[in-house]
């Protein structure tokens, strides 16, 4: 069966001000049950979703940032982060949660899921997708 399509979830909103970020993650987790090739992109304020050190205890709402670390188990191994969006916000990769996956084809070696890409590289990645889902 060559029904496998490339799905990309494009995340452009900060995590707690609106419900976009959490909804996106829920759809990603549900969608992972279907055998498709899924990747995520974080750009604009979306990069704030995967920053380290989030603590929502005083808000009384769920901190879902640890859930991104489970995505490797769900077969999602490509998480694209736009360099320009990080730079504009004074962030570097070191400010992001180090998302990893275990490569089954390489003796379960732990590898980085995060791919830092420039806008011009992201253009190419977007172009390769079959379906783009925006949040």
């Amino acid at each position, binding site marked *: 069966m060559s029904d496998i399509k490339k799905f990309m979830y494009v995340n452009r909103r900060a995590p707690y001000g609106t419900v976009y970020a959490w909804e996106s993650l829920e759809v990603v*987790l549900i969608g*992972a049950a279907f055998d498709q090739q899924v990747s995520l992109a974080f750009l604009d304020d979306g990069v704030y979703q995967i920053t380290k050190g989030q603590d929502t205890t005083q808000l009384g709402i*769920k901190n879902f940032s*640890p*859930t991104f*670390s*489970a995505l490797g188990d*769900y077969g999602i191994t490509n998480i694209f982060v736009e360099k320009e969006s990080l730079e504009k916000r004074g962030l570097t990769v070191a400010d992001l949660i180090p998302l990893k996956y275990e490569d089954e084809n390489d003796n379960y070696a732990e590898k980085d899921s995060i791919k830092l890409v420039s806008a011009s590289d992201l253009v190419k990645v977007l172009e390769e997708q079959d379906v783009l889902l925006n949040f």
Partner: protein
Amino acid sequence: MPIEVNGKTLETDEEGYLSNLTEWEPAVAGIMAKLDNCELTDSHWEVINFLREYYEEYQIAPAVRVLTKAIGKKLGPDKGNSKYLYELFPYGPGKQACKYAGLPKPTGCV
């Protein structure tokens, strides 16, 4: 339908999942299992404890496929398969074990 655990009344949703996840204690699992006519063994507890640790780390109940794979990695291939897990939890390892562990229903589980 609330359940009585050690003199406390705990709220559950229409499918029997705890409404407030922080109210969970080990006795909850036993009482829920009894309602399903199920007796919890050490093997059940291995899975329940695994799920609680998974939730603590990732804040989600894993999908069955993910659970099966992760159990296999942690407890060995003889346990990391759906036959073994369905024998322990005939209503579905995702649904039933998560319920006993005080977790929400796995995301995407219907």
